[in-house]
């Protein structure tokens, strides 16, 4: 019985792994095939010849390095601002109760229910009246505002697991609330903060529709916007497309690979009933 369960487990985990890896494998392989192999028949599961031609092409036909830079700036800047604001607001929401406390939490949860892009049109008019459209700052602003509620909910959960006696003890020893937060609580919270940061970065990196609405200057496009316009322009060039896809996947996978232990650890900490 135990042995049977063991084999079922092994089989399931193996099949799942293959199913997960295959699309990634296929897009990488496609991006490394010479043009004629991509459309040759029968399909080649291992290219006879590897080439970086598709990668060269994508930098030739577009300002791909600029798009990568824009995406990095926006994603990192917005994730940082989100973390700074959300840590403070989550701390307040976790440690104090005040008038309107419940209503604020409820409002945060409600924002999770609305399809965000319904507000795009009014936001666009507002931002263009401030002359902020076609500016990377507008994206940082929008992403920050969009992510604060969820990040606050997430971080509040982590704060609630840390006994408040910890900072009370520090305050008796002469720390102010502020230094107690910075010196004692934040270090304990690091896995939680890291997983929230990664979550925010990934969301910003992948965001498409706000960026499409707000940016139409070619030099300011982020990666998803650029990929979107490739689809519209070069519908058949799957070589360049897959090279672009691979390049835009790499940073998130890289960050995710380093941090995935943090994420599960952070969530485990958060899920523990204190």
């Amino acid at each position: 019985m135990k042995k049977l369960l063991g084999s079922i487990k092994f089989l399931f985990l193996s099949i799942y792994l293959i199913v997960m890896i295959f699309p990634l494998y296929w897009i990488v392989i496609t991006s490394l095939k010479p043009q004629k192999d991509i459309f040759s028949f029968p399909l080649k599961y291992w290219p006879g010849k590897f080439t970086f031609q598709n990668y060269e092409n994508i930098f030739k036909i577009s300002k791909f390095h600029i798009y990568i830079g824009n995406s990095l700036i926006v994603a990192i800047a917005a994730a940082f601002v989100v973390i700074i604001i959300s840590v403070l607001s989550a701390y307040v929401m976790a440690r104090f109760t005040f008038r309107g406390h419940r209503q604020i939490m409820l409002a945060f949860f409600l924002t999770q229910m609305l399809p965000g892009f319904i507000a795009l049109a009014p936001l666009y008019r507002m931002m263009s009246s401030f002359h902020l459209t076609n500016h990377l700052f507008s994206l940082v602003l929008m992403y920050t505002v969009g992510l604060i509620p969820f990040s606050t909910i997430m971080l509040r959960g982590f704060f609630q697991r840390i006994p408040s006696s910890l900072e009370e003890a520090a305050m008796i020893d002469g720390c102010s609330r502020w230094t107690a937060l910075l010196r004692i609580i934040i270090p304990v919270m690091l896995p939680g903060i890291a997983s929230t940061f990664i979550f925010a970065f990934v969301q910003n990196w992948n965001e498409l529709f706000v960026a499409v609405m707000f940016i139409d200057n070619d030099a300011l496009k982020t990666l998803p916007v650029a990929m979107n316009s490739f689809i519209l322009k070069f519908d058949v060039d799957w070589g360049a497309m897959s090279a672009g896809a691979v390049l835009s996947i790499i940073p998130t996978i890289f960050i995710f690979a380093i941090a995935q232990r943090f994420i599960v650890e952070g969530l485990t900490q958060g899920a523990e009933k204190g």
Partner: protein
Amino acid sequence: MAFQDYKLFDLRHIKFVGFSNFKDAFQDPKFLLALKNSGYWVFFSLISQFLIGLTLALFMKKQFKGRGIYQGFAFYSWALSGFLIGMIWKWMFNSQIGVFNDLLLRTGIIHDRIGFLSNPSWAMASAIIANVWYGVAFFAIMLLAALQSVPADLYEAADMDGASGTRKLLNVTLPYIMPTIISTTLLRAIWIFNDPTLIYGLTNGGPAGSTHILSSLMLDKIIYAGDYGAASAIGVIMIVLLLLYTIFFLGITKAEKVGDF
């Protein structure tokens, strides 16, 4: 805006039109199809993602050699954008040079090519398969985290009472992680319902509107028609459906602390 005639290309003629955007929506066969599709989309995606995610989390709970690396490959899909996943699957589903048709033909499972995305009766199912692939990781991460936080002494106590594996699963594990299950499925259903990016990348609603869900149809009204009135009406309908769903869901699960994870 849902009550206005609000077109982006005709901003001088914005006027109040009462319920006519809603009436138009319910008379539009595309909207009705999208409504039905949204139901299938959420139901089948959610159930499959949950069941596969739970099995995966249970099997991964015990430490095994290379679990860290396995975890990395098993969960990475969570970090990709729905749009890119849509693109990649569009490439694999391609009826002429797609890899799925090639694999199925080679193994002799099928003898004629399937138009996974070009055949309306296949398209929605194909989109759901891609969506399940995308979402399993999220469930597995949340559930695995919850499983790892079950205190070991609960199992020790169950062992002393001579509980079998199945009993431990049903009486210890599942009740303990129930709050996580409830909040994850609740939030996830809302996100699946709201997020049009995968559909946008995969089919953009085609062929002939057969894969539109409400959110992608709404996006379509904004991007291609610039018709914010019609889009807002769909948005309002979506919000009402979500509210009904949330109330219903909280009612049947009797959850008190939703979102607390």
